[in-house]
């Protein structure tokens, strides 16, 4: 049981690290980008 909990907790960490790297690298239109897009001439 202890090993299962240990493994699950570590998997959670791996998922978190992966998620952070993905969010950092992802091109995500934030408010700044949206503002730039709305200012761009048609």
């Amino acid at each position, binding site marked *: 049981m*202890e090993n299962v*909990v*240990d493994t699950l*907790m*570590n998997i959670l*960490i791996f998922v*978190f690290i992966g998620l*952070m790297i993905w*969010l*950092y690298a992802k091109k*995500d*239109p*934030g*408010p*700044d*980008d*949206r503002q730039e897009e709305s200012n761009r001439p048609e």
Partner: protein
Amino acid sequence: MFRNPLMVTALSLTAAVSIWGLMDAQALAAFAARTVSVILRSRGWFIMLTASALLIISIWLALSRFGQIKLGRPEDEPEFSTFSWLAMMFAAGMGVGLLFYGAAEPISHFLFIQSQGDIPVHRAGPTALFLTYFHWGLHAWAIYGLTALVIAYFTFRRQAPPLVSAPVKIVFGDKPWARTVGWLMDLLAIYAIAIGLAGSIALGVFQVEDGVATLFDIQRTGLGLGLSIFVVLCLAYILPLMVDLSKGMAALSNTAILIAISLMVFVLLVGPTHLFMQNIVEGFGEYVTNVLPHGFRSYTFFQESVGQWFSAWTLNYMLWWLAWAPFVGVFIARISRGRTIREFILGVLLAPTTFSIFWFGIFGGMGFYQGAANQLDPTVVQTDINRTTFLLLETMPLSKMTIAATIVAAFLFIVTSVVSAAYVLSMFSTGGDQDPPVKVKLTWGVILGALGLVMILSGSADAVRQIIALSANPFVFIILFLVMCLLKALKREKSV
């Protein structure tokens, strides 16, 4: 503020833990101890990696081109003098702990190292000092500093409210997932601040109680003395809550730090000065050469006793700094407008670490010296750790005065912590108002006092520590998330 769902949820959560503590303190302590032990065993490596990563990112940010970015508008100037700025951040971040662990922690590590027998006796002192420096040095301040930097950057440069959730909303936009994650982060921050501060009030009262008992040679029976100290403490923090932050906090922090510096200089000059200086230089050399590699150590293939020591000290310290990071971070951010990222990071990392090196070098050196001269029984750290500083001062001239000064400084440090926490919680509960109304600050002062009282009534310092460690656990993830938001925002700012 009671119409705000976030505040109601946070208060309900905190109240539930308090009621559990009041009804069955032992069951709550046992639950917290069991859970914290599982967390430290499974995630110890991750906590150390996080602390080291935060330190390396801090150094990189200070040295990189981002270091020139000002936390505020180009014309903004720092609100506080550099001494007041450093004194306030130090008083809020560590303060009272230094007074009680100055001699006790190095002695405790020294005894443990000797009991293991792996390290020669002449190396035990510098190693004990190095471990103490490691716990109170750059890693601790990197945790505080980066949390503060994220909040300061988004508040003063991006005009966001000074909330833990703000960076997520700014960087990822007003999406449902960002709102939910932000809401959860604010909730956990309020919960961690309230529990952490209430715990600190309780621990501070236990420590001041030990000092008063030593000073007046009182035999402690029951909770009478502790409760009297608690009442005086509550009366003492009401006034600073009613005046402007810059006046109240700066005056209190400066006084507390000046008393602490005077005590340090007194011990340095009255004790064997050359021995302290040797101790400091040797410990400093050890620290500078080993600090980064040691941050990655998790004592994997050591005896079980070493693993237990590592959990009880190093990991617990890192969790402790994480527990305090939301409130110290928001508070440091609030007082840092107008400083550049480089100035901010170098100030936050180097000034408190240098002070700690001198502090522990002098008090730890005095502890080693008195232990060797049979003037102090070093095993006091195993039986009554809070009294170590007082027993040490008792063997020196003007002991009544120095013990009284220590009690006053400890008291002021606790008051500054409560005032800054009440201020941060008031900001959170008013949606990020940087000058929250006095009545909101007073309400939080009363709530923190009531929670502190609950923890004092539990009567167990260990139970309090475990509950704080448990509440801090999510912050390993939250701080990394916030730092990722900062790096993403800086990358965007420089590319525009």
